[in-house]
C-alpha cells in the first residue's frame, strides 16, 4: 500500500465535516428543571380545576330526565306481549306519565335509551354492508357475506342486510304535555336533522336507478326478518326520509360503543307552538309508546330521555368531576414537588459530580 498524502485529494476517504454526520446538529436540550416543571404543574393544576368548575356549573344548568318505560306505566302488558314471539307483529301501545320539575330551556332533545343492548359485539358490528347502504346497486342485490345470516331471506337479498339493520329499534314515541289548565298538547318534534350530516349525505344513499321510484328500486329485495315494514316505507309522513337515508335507521346504524346508550329520536319543534317557544315548560307529561322492540330477550331496559344541551354537550357529570379531581391532585403534587425542590433540588445537594 503506497503512502497517500494525508487526507487530501479527491480520492480521500475523509468523512464530510457536516453537522449531521458529525452528530453536531444544533439542538434544543430541554430538561425538567424546577423553573419549568413547577410553574407547569401549577398552571395545569389550576387550569384543570377551573375547567372542571366551569364544566360543572355548565352541566348543572343542563336539564335531563330519564324515563324507564320497559315495564312502567301501562307498558308491562306490552312487555309481556313482546316476550312472546307469536305476538311479535301484534301492535301494542302504552304510555308512561312523568313530570318536569322545572322548565327545560331552549332546545330539548328526545332520546331513546337502551340498557344492556350490545351494539358493540364484533360479529354484530361487522354484520352490515356499507356498499349496499351507500346505494351501490350491485351490492343491493348481492349483500356482503358479512351480513350472514341476515343477507338472504330464502334466496331474496335482504335490504338493508345484516344483524344491525335487522335489530333496528322500532318503538315510536308521542310526547304529550298535560298543562295544569287541563287538556293535552302533543309536543311537536322534528324527526329529521337527527343524524350526522355526513351520514345522511355521504355514508347512506338510496340506490338510484333512473326513472324508478324507491319501491321499484328495492324490488327484488326482502325486508329484514324483524322489520314490520320495508325500508322504503319507514317514514310514511316524509317521503324523503325513506330508504337507507331514513334518519332513524341512520342513527341506529351508528353503533354505540357501550351496551348502555341513548340515541336521538327527535328535536323539539319550538316554532310550531308558542307554548314550546322557550323549551318544555315544567309540568306533567305523558309519553305514548308504540311498543315494538322487545327488551326482555337481552334483559335490558328501554328509556325515554329528555335533555337540553350546552356548548359542552349533554349532562355528563363525569368529565367535570374528573377535571376537578385531576386538577386538585396535580396541585397537591405541585406543592410536594415545590417542597422537595426547595429542600434539596434548589441547593443542588445531589448534584456534586
Amino acid at each position, binding site marked *: 500500500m503506497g503512502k497517500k498524502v494525508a487526507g487530501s485529494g479527491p480520492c480521500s476517504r475523509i468523512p464530510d465535516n457536516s453537522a449531521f454526520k458529525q452528530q453536531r446538529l444544533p*439542538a434544543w436540550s430541554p*430538561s425538567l428543571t424546577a423553573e419549568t416543571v413547577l410553574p407547569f*404543574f401549577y398552571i395545569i393544576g389550576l387550569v384543570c380545576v377551573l375547567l372542571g368548575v366551569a364544566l360543572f356549573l355548565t352541566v348543572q344548568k343542563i336539564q335531563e330526565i330519564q324515563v324507564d318505560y320497559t315495564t312502567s306505566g301501562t307498558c308491562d302488558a306490552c312487555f309481556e306481549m313482546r316476550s312472546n314471539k307469536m305476538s311479535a307483529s301484534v301492535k301494542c301501545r302504552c304510555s308512561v306519565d312523568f313530570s318536569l320539575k322545572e322548565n327545560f330551556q331552549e*332546545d330539548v332533545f328526545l332520546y331513546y335509551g337502551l340498557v344492556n343492548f350490545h351494539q358493540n*359485539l*364484533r360479529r354484530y358490528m361487522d354484520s352490515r354492508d356499507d356498499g349496499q347502504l351507500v346505494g351501490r346497486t350491485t351490492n343491493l342485490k348481492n349483500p356482503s357475506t358479512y351480513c350472514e345470516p341476515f343477507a338472504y331471506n330464502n334466496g331474496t337479498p335482504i335490504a338493508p342486510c345484516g344483524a344491525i339493520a335487522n335489530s333496528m329499534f322500532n318503538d315510536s314515541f308521542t310526547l304529550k304535555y298535560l298543562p295544569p289548565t287541563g287538556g293535552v298538547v302533543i309536543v311537536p318534534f322534528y324527526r329529521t336533522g337527527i343524524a350526522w350530516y355526513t351520514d345522511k349525505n355521504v355514508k347512506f344513499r338510496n340506490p338510484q336507478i333512473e326513472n324508478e321510484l324507491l319501491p321499484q328500486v328495492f324490488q327484488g329485495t326482502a325486508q329484514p326478518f324483524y322489520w314490520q315494514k320495508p325500508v322504503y316505507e319507514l317514514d310514511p309522513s316524509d317521503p324523503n326520509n325513506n330508504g337507507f337515508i331514513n334518519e332513524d335507521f341512520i342513527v341506529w346504524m*351508528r353503533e354505540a360503543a357501550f351496551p348502555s346508550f341513548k340515541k336521538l329520536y327527535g328535536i323539539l319543534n319550538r316554532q310550531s307552538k308558542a307554548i314550546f317557544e322557550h323549551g318544555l315548560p315544567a309540568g306533567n307529561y305523558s309519553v305514548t309508546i308504540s311498543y315494538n322492540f322487545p327488551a326482555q330477550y337481552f334483559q335490558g331496559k328501554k328509556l325515554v330521555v329528555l335533555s337540553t344541551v350546552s356548548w359542552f354537550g349533554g349532562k355528563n357529570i363525569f368529565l367535570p368531576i374528573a377535571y376537578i379531581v385531576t386538577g386538585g391532585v396535580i396541585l397537591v403534587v405541585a406543592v410536594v414537588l415545590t417542597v422537595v425542590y426547595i429542600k434539596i433540588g434548589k441547593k443542588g445537594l445531589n448534584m*456534586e459530580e
Partner: protein
Amino acid sequence: MLASPIFYRFFSSLFQDNRIRTSKYNIFTFLPINLFEQFQRVANAYFLFLLILQLIPQISSLSWFTTIVPLVLVLTITAVKDATDDYVGNVLCSRLQNEKWMNVRVGDIIKLENNQFVAADLLLLSSSEPYGLCYVETAELDGETNLKVRQALTVTSELGMDMSKLADFDGEVVCEPPNNKLDRFVGTLYWKDSRYPLDNEKLLLRGCVLRNTEWCFGMVIFAGPQTKLMQNCGRTAFKRTSIERLMNTLVLWIFGFLLCMGIILAIGNSIWEEKVGKNFRDYLVWEDVLSNSVFSGFLTFWSYIIILNTVVPISLYVSVEVIRLGHSYFINWDRKMYYGQRDMPAEARTTTLNEELGQVEYIFSDKTGTLTQNIMVFNKCSINGKTYGDVYDEFGHKVEISEKTPCVDFSFNPLRDKKFHFYDHSLVEAIKLGDPMVEEFFRLLALCHTVMSEEKNEGELVYQAQSPDEGALVTAARNFGFVFRARTPETITLYEMGKHVTYQLLAILDFNNVRKRMSVIVRNPVGQIKLYSKGADTILFDRLDPTNDDLMYTTSEHLNEFAGEGLRTLALAYKDLDEEYFADWMKRLHIASTTLENREELLASLYEEIEQDMMLLGATAIEDKLQEGVAETIACLTLSSIKIWVLTGDKLETAMNIGYSCNMLRDDMNEVFIITAILRVQTLRWPQERSCIKKVYLDVYIKFTRPLTSIQKLKTNDSVFEETITSEYALIINGHSLAHALEADLECLLLDTACLCKTVVCCRVTPLQKAQVVELVKKYKRAVTLAIGDGANDVSMIKTAHIGVGISGQEGMQAVLASDYSFAQFRYLQRLLLVHGRWSYYRMCRFLCYFFYKNFAFTLVHFWFGFFCGFSAQTVYDQWFITLFNIVYTSLPVLAMGLFDQDVNEQNSLRQPKLYEPGQLNLLFNKRQFFMCTLQGIYTSCVLFFIPYGAFSNTVRDDGSHIADQQSFAVTIATSLIIVVSVQIGLDTNYWTAVNHFYIWGSLTVYFSILFAMHSDGIFRIFPSHFPFIGTARNSLTQTSVWLVILLTAVICVMPVVAIRFLRTDLYPTLSDKVRYNGRKQRPQEQNLKRVRRTSSRRSAYAFSHQEGYGELITSGKNMKAARLFPAPPTGRIPGSSSWIESLLKKRTEMASGAAVGPLNGSAERSKSENTPVQQQHID
C-alpha cells in the same frame, strides 16, 4: 505461476481454490433465499402465522391488511438492508483479496518475491538464498516481531529457479488434514522413489511476509479456507448483543403475556356467552360452527391473539436494525476517528453490535501493532555517566519533544539514514570532539549485533535486522558516524567517521533468554582483541569490573530514569582481551562445541567465563513507540471501569515494558505477580508442575482474599475497606502457565485472581489461548468483552469476544476482516466506546423502553374494551389506525430519538468516563426497566380507555346528536393515544434536533391528515367497505367535549411521568443528570488525564525482542549472499557449526511446542490427530 494441467484435470474439484467467499446471494437467488432466511426469524414467522389466522373468517378480528402491510414493509426494509450488506461486503472483500492469487489451487507452484505476503500455505521448494533458506516475518500470525527462518529440503532446493525443472516437479505430498495448529505440520514428500519427511520448518504459512529473500518457490499445500491461518480464524459465530438477547426473552415474555390475556378474554367470552350472549342470540344468530360457548371462547382466543398481536411489536426488530445501521454510519462518518496519515476512516463492519459498545467491561488488547507501532526508536543513551537525548531550553528546563523541535543535522555523514531523528545536539558534538568513550559506545553498537547489511547502490544501505531493536541501535550508530557497512563470516566492515575500518570477527556469543546478553569478540585493525557485550543491565552489572562501581551507580540512575519513561534499555560494556587468554579460551570453546554431551552447558559456562570484569560503557534506551495517545486512552478507559488485559504473543519483558509505558503497570502498585512456568512437554512430569502452578495461583489468590475476607469480618471499619479497594495488584502470566490455568479446575481460580488485579498481562500466548482467555471471561463473568488487535494472531480472539476491533491500515488485513469495527489507531477506542458506544446504548435503551411502552399503551386498550363488548374481540380503533400506528404514526419520532438523542454531549462523555458505567451495569434497559415501561404502558392504556369511557357514557354532541358511538370513541382514543405518545416521546427526547422536531410535529400532522383523508367522502365513495369511518373525524373532532376528553387523558397520562422524573432528578440524580445540571450552571470541571510519568524505579527495563541462533547463522556464513564473494566459508572455526541450522530449528521447535501444546490443546488433541485419517494429496 506454474500449473500442472494433469492435476487440474483430475483433482481440481477436490480442493479449494484460494478465494474466500463471503457473498451469500446473487440476483436470482436473492428473493427466495432472503425470504426463507427472514421467515426463519421467529418474529417474522409469528406474523406469517397471524396472517394465516386472519384469513379464517370466524377468527378474523382484523382485516388482513393490518398485518400484511407492516409485514411487507418490514420484509422489504430488511431485504434491502441484507442486499446492501451483502453487496458492500462483497465489494470490500474483493478489494482486499489479492486478485493475483485468487485462482491458486492446491498443487500449484508459485513464486514469491521479497516483502510479499504468502498467499497460501506453501511447501518451500527453493529460494534465492543459499541452502534453500528463506526468512519470514510472522508478526501477522503470532505477533512476534523477529524474523523466522525456513529451509527447503535439500533435494528441492536444488531446483533453484529453473523453470523447466520446477515444471517437471512431480512430487507427491501426503500430509495431515487441514487444521489450525500454526506450529505443527506433519507430512511426507514422495519424489523420485524417496520419502522426505516434512515439518513445519519447510512450510510457509499464509499471512507471513517474505523478508530478506529475493524470491522463493513453493508448492501450495493448503489454499483458501483450508490454510492454517483461515482455520485459525474460527467459525464466525453470529454475534448477538446482550440487549438483543434480553429483547428476545422479553418478546417471549410478552408473548406469554399475550397468551394470558387471550386466555382471560377467552374465558370471559365463554362466561359472557353463557350468561349474557345467549339472550342476545335473537339479534346475533350463532353460526353453525359456533356450537357452544366454550367453542366460542376458543375462537375468541385466536381473535384476541390477532388483535393483541401488536404488543409483540413487529416493527421492533426492523427499527432496531435501522437504528443500529444509523449508529454504524455515525461511526463511519466520524472525522475524529479518521486517521489522515493513512487516509483511514473508522469502519463499523457489523451493524448489529453498536449498543454493546456501551457496555464493555473487559478489553483484551494485543500489544504489537495495537498498543505499539512496532517501531523502535533510539531515543536516549547514557555514555560514561552522561545522558544524551533530552533537550533543554536556555533556562535549563526540559523541553517536550514535538515535531517542531529541531533535529540534529547529520548531513556530515553521507551514509546516514534520513529517517533517523535525534534531538540532542550534545551527542553529535561529543562525537565530533572525538570523545573516546562515545566512539567506543557507537563502535560497540555497530559491531555487536546480528544485522545483515545490503548495499544495492553505493551509499544506499539497507539493514536487515531480525529484531527491530537491533535495527534501531545499528541505525543510530550509523547516523552518528559508525556505519556498519558489510560483514562476512569473519569480518565486519565499518565506515568509522569517514574511514573504512575492518574488524576481524572472532566469535559471536549469541543471545538467549537465560543469558539475556550477546557479545562479539573482534580484533581491531590495530590488533587488539576486544569483547563487546550488550544485554540486560541486571545481568551485565554483575559482570563488571569493580572499578566501574561509580559509573555503574550513575548509569543505573540513568537506567531508572529511562525505565521510568517506559523505554527499553540495554547496558553496554566492553573488555580488552589478552591474546593468550583468548587463544586458550578459543581452544576450549572448540573442544566444548565438538562434545556431544552437555554441549550447551559447556558453551554457556565458557561464555560466562569470558564475559567477566567488563568495563561499562553506558546504556541505550529504545522507545518501543506506542501508538499515539495510548496511555491517555488506557487511563481514560480505566476510569470508566473498563478492565484492560493485554494478551500478546511477545515476550514477558517486552510485554511488561509496554505495560509500564502505558501506565498499566506502575511502581506504586502494591504487588505485581508474575507467573511464569517453563515447561517441557516432552517430559511427562507435567502433573507435578501443574500442582506446583496450582499452588502459585492459590498463593496469589490467598494474598488477595485475605484482606478481602478480613473486611467482610470488619465491615464496620471503613478505612480497611477503603484500603483494600484502593490496593492495586497486577498479574502477569505467560502462555505455559496459562495453559494450565485454563484447565477446568483452575480456570475459576485464575479468573478470580485476575479480576482482583487492576492489570492483567498475558504474554507468550498463542492465538488459541487468546481466544480461550476471552472465552473464560465471557463464560463466567457475564460481562461484555471487546478484543482489539491488528494481526492474524488476534483473529481468534477478535472473533470470540463479543466485540472484535481490528486496527486497520497495517499491511495485513486479517484482523480487520474478522473484526466488527476497525480503525487505524488504538486511541480511537476511547471515542468508539465512550462516545459512540455510550450513545448507542443509551439511545437503544431509550428506544426500547419507549417502544414497549408505546405498544402496551396502544394494544391494551383492546383488553379493557373486551370487558364492555362481551369479549367479542371487537377492536377499539379503526383498522387503518391499527395498520398505520406502528409503522407511520409513531415510528419516525422514536427512530429520530434512537438515532440522534444525546443525554450528554461528546465532550462531557469523554470528560466524565464514569458516565460509561450505567451501560456496564446494564442499568438503562433491564427486566426492571422493561417492567416499569410496560407498567407505564398499562397505566396509559387504562387512562386512555376509562377516561373516554366515563366521558362517553352519557354524552351527546352540542347539537344533541349522539357521539357515544363506537367510531367516535375510536377516533377519540386514537387521537388521545397519538397525542400522549407524542408528548411522551417529547419528554424522552433530550436532544431536539431539527429532525426530531420535523418527525414529531410531522407525525402529528400526518396522523391528522391521514385521519381526515381516510374519513373523507372521496375515499369512502371509492371503497365504501374499507373506509367505514366516513365523517367520524369531522363530527367528533369538532366537538369541544372530545377535545376536553383528549386533554384530560393526556394530562393524566403525562403528569405522573413528569412528576416522577422531576423527583428522581432531584432526589436520586444520575451522573448524566448531574453533568447536565452542572453544564447548565456553566461550571466546567477540567479533569486531568495527562500521562503521569513514572517516578524512579528500581526495575530493569530490559526488553529485547531477539532470538537465539542468529550468531551461529552469521559465523557459519550460511546466510551470506556475500558468500559468493568469499567462497570458502571457514570450517571448524566454531566446531559443530555444520549443525547450526538443526540447532536453530530445534530451539524454535522447543519454544513453539512449549508455547502451544498446553494441556488443553496438547495431549488430548495430539492423540486425536494421530487417529484421524491422513489426507493424501497427490501432486503431479
